[in-house]
């Protein structure tokens, strides 16, 4: 597990900085919640005035006066975007950075199979995403305690779990893309995250829904949808599970047989 621990060590600064920065942002958002709750009539008017924008962010579907609704719409959405970008950026460079930084010529002359390198690096990615979600969830839970308002903890855990599933899904797809490229592609990672996010906004606006729902996994993991429906859409959970596994298999096949560019 040398590469697994090496990757965790290499990525720990990025993981902790992103997690803590997201946590601070989320706490700031949550600190406004009591004011929103006290001025609900004005907020409702404001949301109604937003029109399609409110629809895009699913603000028209939930009452923001409720703690968990507010969290899913504001903090959950922020976490979704930051986490998505973090997952994509970490995933897209995980394999390709060895070639991009020319360390492949150090690593691969060692007696280690490429399959093992792929597995250890993927596991390291998943652990980093888990750490991100755990730190963020602890922050969110702390804010709930401080706000002293009733909420359904099972639903909260479902939101956090759905976000973790989303990050694993997009992180793994980007990890697989990483096998096909030979340079670091942070910009591509951010681009993929933003594209998936925008597609989901369009779905909420009923634009291209029938196509985009099969492209962006945010569709079935969006916090507002989890709160509204109370559960995952299992059809799409299975569909994106299959997409993730297929992409990982393709990425593995490519990386195991490719000529390393050094």
């Amino acid at each position, binding site marked *: 597990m*040398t*590469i697994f621990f*090496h990757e965790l060590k*290499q990525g720990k600064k990025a993981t902790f900085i992103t997690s803590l920065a997201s946590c601070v942002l989320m706490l700031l958002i949550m600190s406004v919640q009591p004011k929103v709750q006290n001025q609900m009539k004005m907020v409702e008017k404001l949301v109604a005035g937003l029109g399609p924008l409110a629809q895009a962010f699913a603000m028209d579907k939930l009452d923001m006066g409720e703690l968990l609704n507010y969290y899913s719409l504001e903090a959950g959405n922020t976490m979704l975007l930051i986490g998505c970008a973090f997952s994509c950026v970490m995933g897209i460079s995980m394999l390709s950075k060895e070639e991009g*930084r*020319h*360390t*492949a*010529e*150090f*690593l*691969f*002359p*060692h*007696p*280690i*199979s490429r399959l093992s390198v792929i597995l250890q690096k993927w596991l390291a990615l998943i652990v980093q995403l888990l750490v991100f979600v755990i730190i963020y969830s602890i922050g969110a839970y702390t804010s709930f305690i401080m706000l002293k308002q009733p909420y359904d903890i099972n639903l909260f855990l479902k939101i956090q779990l759905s976000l973790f599933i989303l990050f694993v899904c997009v992180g793994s797809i980007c990890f697989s893309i990483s096998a096909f490229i030979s340079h670091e592609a942070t910009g591509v990672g951010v681009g993929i995250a933003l594209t998936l996010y925008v597609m989901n906004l369009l779905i909420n606006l009923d634009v291209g829904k029938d196509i985009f729902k099969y492209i962006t996994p945010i569709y079935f993991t969006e916090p507002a949808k989890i709160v509204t429906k109370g559960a995952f859409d299992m059809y799409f959970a299975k569909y994106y599970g299959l997409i993730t596994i297929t992409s990982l298999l393709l990425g593995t096949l490519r990386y195991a*047989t490719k*000529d*390393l560019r*050094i």
Partner: protein
Amino acid sequence: MDTAISTENLTKRYGRARGIENVSLEVLPGQIFGFIGPNGAGKSTFIRTLLGLIRPSSGNISVLGNTIPMKSRSVLKQIGYMPSEASYYRGMRALDVFRMSSRLRKKDCERESWVLSDRLGLDPTRQVADLSFGNQKKVAIVAAMQHKPKLLILDEPTSGLDPLVQRAFWDILLERNRQGATIFISSHVLSEVQQHCSHAAIIREGHILVSDSVSRLGENTARRITLRGINELTQDIINFPGVLKVDIHTSESSVLYQGDMHDLLAKINHLPYSDIIITEPSLEEIFLHVYERGE
């Protein structure tokens, strides 16, 4: 195991671009084998194919009795590889590089890494990124040698090293060779290949031009004939069949000649030279001569 490295018609193409073409080479166990060629000749492609970093387009490779790339992993346990320009992970000390390499090999090499660092004058507690190019080379040398491999593959190992460190490096290398290690070394420095290697091969534009013992490479090629006391040569000598190269200086003239020595001596006998010196050309001259003629 009859050979340490054996390739048969090994070809690697990058789309339409040439890599190496029908390279057949044999390196016997215990040899110090020099691999000579200019930049872009295919040296690194050949080495990376041996290590399984890239896959051959066609041909066969056997390293330490194992077929590559099928049995790369078991072979790599017994190989030490030093790239021409090594890159390491950010924030690592030389010591961390050695430890990571040891862990990947599942072998405790801590003591040997300190011994080698000491002999090469490397402080392994320093960050690799802060080291000079020469010291980074030392890191690569230690990483390649600390597990005492049976086969050392070294790509331009001495470039960037000062003469004292080069000497320490060759002392270690020769020691390892005496202990039974086979050494495959690619180099531009022909004098060191001539001095230390028992066999050598010359590669040009992806093709092996010649592969033989270093002594035979010297024997079988041209001679340099230096005529002291004359600073011009007649056209019939310059154009004489077998004369490969003519050098005219203030106090002497010389020709690089490949052919029957009697014929040339008969031709130059009438010239008013004060002394005549016939020498074996250096490997450098052989190297350049072979390239110029493209043989």
